[in-house]
């Protein structure tokens, strides 16, 4: 790897590790100091490596420099030494001998501790996601703002407020206890799930977004590597993520436009991720409780089989039924109706769709358009036009426009056939 690529790469993989270790060492009150030290370390790297060339082991170099900068900070800042160094649990109270442990084990422990801090319910979900992207994944304010389609200022404020809240609540950065894990793992998993979705369902900045998904997977995997958090729900969540991400390469064409499932080239589906998904789904089936992650992973599993069999859609329908019993969501209601139409036919599907009445949702009208196609193409077009008028993202609009064209083509064709019949009738 060339230096120009290496620094961003190391920034992505190492920044968060060193930040996690330093945060755990300093405590929640001094996250910014940890971030400053690590940012400075990377700044030094780009300057010195540019002048002197790459060191033999760049990661080790970063660790050493980060350690030295931390020690310098202790020396320079007497206030810091007096107030914080005393609180530091590690080693001696003498700041010069404070040990900064950047071993793999401590990095993993620190990251786990940080996951539980970042996903603390004292902050609203959107703030937790922004914090996760910033502190756990090393994304900058710019990148996060870009992803949420908002300004740097908004995200900056959101992060500041979230960090302040953690400080005020005096949240401790430490290895979570078994009780804490049991009480809070579901919230942590939900945030990782939302982080993944943020990447998966958004239509802007495609490359960055798949980064979000991979980060969510990495953090979930970190939970699986830890014995206490390696629970069936965690495995179900990772399984779900594996199945979904197996289609990343097939999901976009060269222009970055979304390719719908039934048009995807299955050759581009990542078999390794599918196999991993199956493995984690098996792991998830130990135990008696079933979560929405289990059901969604089950649905995603059936989608890794492209052929439209009756068995596939019956299973998907039943899984959506169960999912809706656990938790209602408009998207689950819409997908369930689609599965029902696949099992029982479009006419039954239309009856069920009319009952769910999600008329303000463009996906509802897209579904109606799909169900009316070949049954009443004029009605299908009507629904698709409504969908087009309420859809927001450019990607959605493109998909709907293509469907309208397809439908208009069919509709014309239908008229022609009807017209010919009339002529024959007259004769």
């Amino acid at each position, binding site marked *: 790897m060339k230096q120009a690529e290496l620094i961003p790469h190391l920034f992505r993989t190492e920044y968060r590790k060193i930040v996690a270790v330093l945060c755990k060492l300093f405590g929640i009150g001094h996250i910014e100091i940890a971030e400053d030290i690590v940012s400075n370390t990377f700044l030094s790297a780009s300057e010195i490596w540019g002048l002197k060339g790459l060191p033999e082991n760049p990661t080790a170099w970063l660790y050493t420099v980060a350690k030295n900068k931390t020690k310098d900070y202790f020396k320079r800042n007497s206030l810091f030494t007096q107030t914080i160094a005393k609180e530091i649990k590690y080693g001696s109270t003498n700041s010069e001998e404070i040990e900064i442990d950047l071993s793999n084990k401590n990095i993993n422990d620190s990251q786990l501790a940080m996951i539980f801090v970042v996903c603390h319910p004292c902050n609203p979900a959107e703030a937790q996601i922004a914090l996760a992207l910033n502190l756990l994944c090393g994304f900058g304010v710019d990148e996060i703002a870009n992803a949420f389609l908002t300004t740097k200022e908004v995200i900056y404020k959101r992060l500041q407020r979230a960090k302040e809240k953690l400080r005020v609540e005096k949240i401790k950065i430490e290895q979570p206890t078994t009780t804490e894990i049991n009480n809070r793992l579901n919230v942590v998993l939900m945030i990782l799930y939302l982080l993944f979705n943020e990447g998966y369902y958004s239509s802007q900045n495609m490359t960055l977004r798949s980064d979000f998904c991979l980060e969510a997977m990495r953090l979930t995997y970190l939970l699986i590597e830890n014995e206490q958090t390696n629970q069936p729900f965690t495995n179900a969540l990772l399984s779900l993520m594996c199945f979904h991400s197996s289609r990343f390469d097939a999901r976009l064409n060269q222009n970055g436009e979304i390719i719908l499932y039934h048009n995807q080239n299955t050759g581009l589906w990542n078999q390794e991720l599918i196999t991993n998904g199956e493995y984690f789904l098996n792991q998830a089936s130990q135990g008696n409780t079933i979560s929405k992650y289990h059901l969604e992973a089950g649905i995603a599993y059936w989608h890794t089989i492209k052929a439209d069999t009756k068995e596939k859609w*019956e299973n998907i*329908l*039943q899984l*959506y*039924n*169960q999912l*809706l*019993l656990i938790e*209602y969501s408009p998207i*689950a*209601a819409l997908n*369930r*109706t689609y599965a*029902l139409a696949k099992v029982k036919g479009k006419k039954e599907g239309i009856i*069920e769709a009319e*009952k*769910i*009445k999600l008329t303000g949702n463009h996906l509802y009208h897209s579904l109606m358009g799909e169900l009316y196609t070949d049954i009443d193409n004029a009605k299908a077009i009507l629904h698709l036009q409504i969908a087009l008028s309420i859809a927001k993202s450019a990607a959605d609009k493109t998909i709907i426009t293509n469907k309208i064209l397809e439908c208009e083509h069919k509709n014309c064709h239908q008229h022609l056939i009807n017209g010919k019949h009339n002529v024959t009738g007259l004769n």
Partner: protein
Amino acid sequence: MKDFLLVFRTDYSTMPKLSPEEMQTLTKRWMDWIGGIAAQNKLTDRGNRLVPSGKVVKTNNVIADGPYAEIKESLVGYSIVKAISIEEATGLTKGCPILEIGGNVEVREIDVL
């Protein structure tokens, strides 16, 4: 929105003995029906089935045994749905599998204490 209790009743004695496959099909039909209500966001509590045998406690410590073979309409289960009116709640029972085997659904508005 108000909550309504749906009470399912049927005659156990006329219930056909089902093979495991038929049982599975019946379960699917129940799931499709209740899933349809959930998809409208009108399910408060999916409820439960009740085992056939039971006891009835009457005055003067008289305890009667179930199952009540003599009773034409045994209680077999319940669910709670939400709807604007009793008419809407009644409409939700359409397609309930109990109706296809000669049973019935009683719809009652819940008067919250």
